[in-house]
């Protein structure tokens, strides 16, 4: 019998186990230090240099006299994070006398001459590894926010927690490619987790206030670190408005089982709730921008470089990949070419697509205190922005597939049976869509085996004991397996020289293949969300 059937040996995992797991997985990340790193490494190295050597006024202007393209283009809080990394006693100690870390590592360098020393790489990689503590914290907050009887355990840990902290997407992006997504995801998941905690029947009045404030502040902080999360703003707005500002705090005595939840209770505005929440959120949003108030236009051009075009170099597996593909095919067939899509149209379509999520997801979740709908709405919003956003990066799919894990890793819930399969499919396709990010043959085996290990774990947790007919399951999974095998073969096993002039073919097939699959998943998620409310 799989270990999921063994109940938790202890009610909560010991801190020793947790630390052991963290240290062991950090060891894996340490071993990845010599692997491939993208230009994002140079980007972050340059940001450290900017925040170390320049006055704050110049942060958003500097480009090392036009010799670097790695200019600061994240919101201010992220710049403060870089400031913290470049100006602290530990860094000072390391860099003292060039003993452990060379001074050059944190200097403003032109792109033509910025090869980092080995110590510099180790320093940068270590900051990512340590900042993953935030991911573990956030995943823990969210994984334990459901009522304990609902949590699906794997050994002594919640399955969703393990599936998040061991997510290969984050491993590839942060510890190979080089970024700080783990930290950002930690904040995001913690914010969602605090929203969920209030919906537990046991939450008190104090928790009702504090958790909502925490969630709002964390999300606002997240926005000032990475504006990619902006598309989740409407979801947070609607949910918090309905759940916190239009609803009284929970009564001292929890309602008895029989009394229906807020039946026929009129919606009433609680101004005090609205004011406190706005104050917390507004302050968190505003304060980081204060030093830059006079340079907002410059800051905004850095944050929103609309000149970049609808799709990334490598097409993320979204609607626009299919659009561009059709455009290419028409071009080859000498047909009419499709019109360019401006950013404004993108934004409009995105807003329209968000609407069902806001009503059927966020509003209903707040009305019914339903965590399932809450997470569904968050996942759906993230998925919309991946599907329709302008110049979307392939990694944005993680915003959808990581929270989705928390929706499906639960016990004895027949409602989410079909979502388990959906989660498995989306994870498989989403991760496959990130494969081209690590393009060197030297990372092939790393990708394949971390993918295989993770998908096996997902299968064990989500699919193995699923309540679904074998035939139906085969129909769901066989096409997926076939697509994944073909794409992996095209992408990884056929030497690139054999494609000749068609060397773009494997990438094209991957993004179109994954796009078709993910769009189907998107539609099914929407239908499920609407159906859940209707049914």
């Amino acid at each position, binding site marked *: *019998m*799989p*270990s999921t059937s*063994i109940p938790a*040996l202890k009610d909560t995992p010991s801190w020793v*186990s947790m630390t*052991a*797991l963290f*240290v*062991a997985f950090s*060891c*894996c990340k*340490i*071993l*990845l*230090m*010599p*692997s*491939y790193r993208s230009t994002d490494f140079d980007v972050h190295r340059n940001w450290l240099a900017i925040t170390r050597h320049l006055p704050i006024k110049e942060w958003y202007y500097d480009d090392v006299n036009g010799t670097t393209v790695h200019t600061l283009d994240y919101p201010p809080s992220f710049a403060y994070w870089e400031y913290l990394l470049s100006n602290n006693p530990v860094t000072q100690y390391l860099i003292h006398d060039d003993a452990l870390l060379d001074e050059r590592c944190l200097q403003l360098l032109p792109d033509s001459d910025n090869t980092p020393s080995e110590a510099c790489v180790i320093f940068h990689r270590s900051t990512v590894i340590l900042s993953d503590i935030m991911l573990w914290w956030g995943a823990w907050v969210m994984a334990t926010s459901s009522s304990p009887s609902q949590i699906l355990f794997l*050994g*002594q840990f919640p399955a969703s927690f393990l599936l998040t902290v061991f997510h290969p997407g984050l491993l590839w992006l942060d510890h190979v490619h080089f970024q700080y997504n783990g930290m950002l995801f930690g904040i995001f998941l913690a914010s969602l987790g605090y929203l969920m905690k209030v919906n537990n029947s046991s939450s008190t009045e104090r928790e009702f206030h504090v958790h909502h404030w925490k969630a709002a502040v964390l999300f606002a902080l997240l926005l000032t670190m990475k504006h990619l999360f902006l598309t989740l703003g409407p979801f947070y707005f609607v949910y918090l408005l309905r759940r916190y500002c239009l609803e009284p705090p929970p009564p001292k005595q929890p309602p008895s089982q029989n009394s229906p939840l807020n039946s026929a209770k009129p919606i009433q505005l609680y101004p005090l709730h609205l004011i406190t929440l706005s104050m917390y959120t507004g302050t968190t949003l505003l304060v980081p921008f204060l030093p830059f108030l006079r340079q907002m236009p410059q800051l905004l051009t850095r944050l929103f470089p609309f000149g970049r075009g609808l799709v990334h170099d490598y097409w993320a597996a979204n609607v626009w990949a299919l659009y561009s593909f059709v455009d290419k095919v028409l071009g080859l067939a000498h047909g009419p070419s499709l019109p360019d899509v401006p950013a404004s149209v993108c934004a409009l379509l995105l807003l329209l697509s968000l609407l069902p999520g806001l009503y059927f997801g966020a509003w209903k979740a707040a009305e019914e205190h339903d965590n399932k709908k809450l997470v569904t709405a968050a996942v759906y919003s993230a998925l919309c922005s991946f599907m329709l956003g302008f110049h979307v990066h392939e990694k944005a799919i993680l915003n959808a597939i990581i929270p989705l894990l928390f929706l499906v890793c639960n016990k004895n819930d027949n409602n989410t049976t079909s979502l388990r399969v959906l989660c498995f499919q989306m994870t498989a396709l989403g991760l496959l869509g990130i494969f081209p990010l690590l393009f*060197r*043959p*030297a990372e*092939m*085996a*790393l990708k394949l*085996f*971390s993918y*295989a*290990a993770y998908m*096996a*774990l997902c*299968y*064990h947790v989500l*699919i*193995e004991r699923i309540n679904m007919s074998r035939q139906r399951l085969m129909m769901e999974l066989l096409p997926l397996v076939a697509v994944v095998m073909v794409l992996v073969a095209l992408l990884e096993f056929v*030497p690139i020289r054999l494609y000749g002039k068609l060397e773009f073919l494997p990438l094209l097939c991957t993004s179109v293949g994954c796009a078709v699959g993910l769009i189907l998943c998107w539609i099914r998620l929407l239908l499920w969300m609407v159906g859940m409310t209707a049914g």
Partner: protein
Amino acid sequence: MVSLHVLVVSLALFVRILVGYQHHSGEDNYHGSKRAYGGDYEAQRHWMELTWHLPIGDWYWYDLQYWGLDYPPLTAYVSYVCGALSEWLVGPGTVALFKSRRYEGDPTHKAFMRATVWVLDALIYFPAVFFILKVLWQLKRQESSSTNEFLIAVLVALLQPSIILIDHGHFQYNTVALGLSLWSLFFIAHPSFFLSCIYGSVFFSLALNFKQMTLYYAPVIFAYLLGRCLAFNNGSKIPLWQQGLERFAALGGTVIITFVQLWWPFLLYGPRDNLSLVEDGSRNALRTMLQRGTHVLRRIFPLERGLFEGKVSNLWCALDTKPINIRDRIPADVQPLAALAATFLLMMPSCIALFLIGRASEQRKEAATRQHAADLKSLLWGCTSCAFAFFLASFQVHEKSILLALAPASLLVWEDVVFCDWMAVVATWTMWPLLVVDRLQLPYVCTLIIFATAITQLRTTPLLQTITMKPTDGDWVAWCWKILCQLSLAAMLVLHALEMVVPVPSHLPDLFPVLWSIGGCALCCLAWLRTVGSLLTEGRSALQKPKND
């Protein structure tokens, strides 16, 4: 349950690939050998180059000064295939004759080299571990225990830090030789004699022909098979001598046929006339098959190198320190004989026990799987013991030879989990001086931590808790053994701490390697004693069996 099998295999490979990103032996000629560039990595790459481009007769003759081929034929054939793949997958520049020397710094090529190791590892060593543990699991499983325990045992066996560090960090193909040896043990222990003798001896011949070091197992395997030849078989009408002769002939025939198939090209073909030979005048000595065969053998067993190689954790190195200085007390020409005698003495317990077990093996009236498991278990103990005998006392021992003792011991998890885990740490620890030379200190720490996490966090099941003995049992020996293990772990840590803190005195430059050598030797002696202890019990029970019938 397929998913968890995939998970275990993928995780084991994942860790190997992580270690593969680190330095290999002799990268940038760091601590490279004086005669040639680099280390084992360059040697293996060079063998791919020379086998792929040269006619087979030249293989053991080509430029012997620059990493001349000195492994047995199967390694050469594998190099040939890898050379072909390297040219096709990575590019002709990676194996171009002579021009590709010192080919380094290309991540794709390094990944290819690493892939040749992990692919062979996964094809040969992984299934051997899996099937052996599966057989042993039959013997030990309880109604209540779940398959997870079996899979966890497989995962732990595949995460052995020393094996990963040497094969996937330092760069060697030990898991091929070890895997073939384990496969041979798997078959040899099978109750049906002819199945066991044919497959088992084919696999063992292949192992010997991949890496000569597997000779460390030969005495035990020979003793056991001899026992099987002369096995008591009450039910049969064939006289014992006739059975023995038949079986011995079958075994011998299989071994000879396997060897001939691997060796004939080297006996038939010598070097081309225009190949310049290092040893002048040796061309005349190449007229006969025997002479050509002798040359290859001399390449594989360079006896002239002497008794001592570096600072290894064996008896000779440990006894060669200041007050004793054994090297000065025994005349040089007696040294090999002394080594031979000592090795013989130390391997005796395992050989005798396995001979007895082999004789008694077909007499038991048990289910075939239980018989298989019982003999397999004894063979694993015996091979560990015999490999330790060689490691401790024979000549020309290398640090890496401890893997030969470790591989069988790592599968005895349901016999003595303390010994099994302790061995994993000891084997890794004794390699520290070598790993420092390879710049693999960080992977050393990381793989040990990963391994420690695996054994402490995954094994939470009652079965193993019962095996892990507690002092309350009144089992004196077991309790002392556990205390000794803990003390030795502490001692190893203390030595690490001392090495970091204490500066090396100028008049004792080799202080720490010597301390490592002495400490390692003591630990290996302890491990050898442990194996003898369990072989005594097993041998005694084998002796008692016939009387009961």
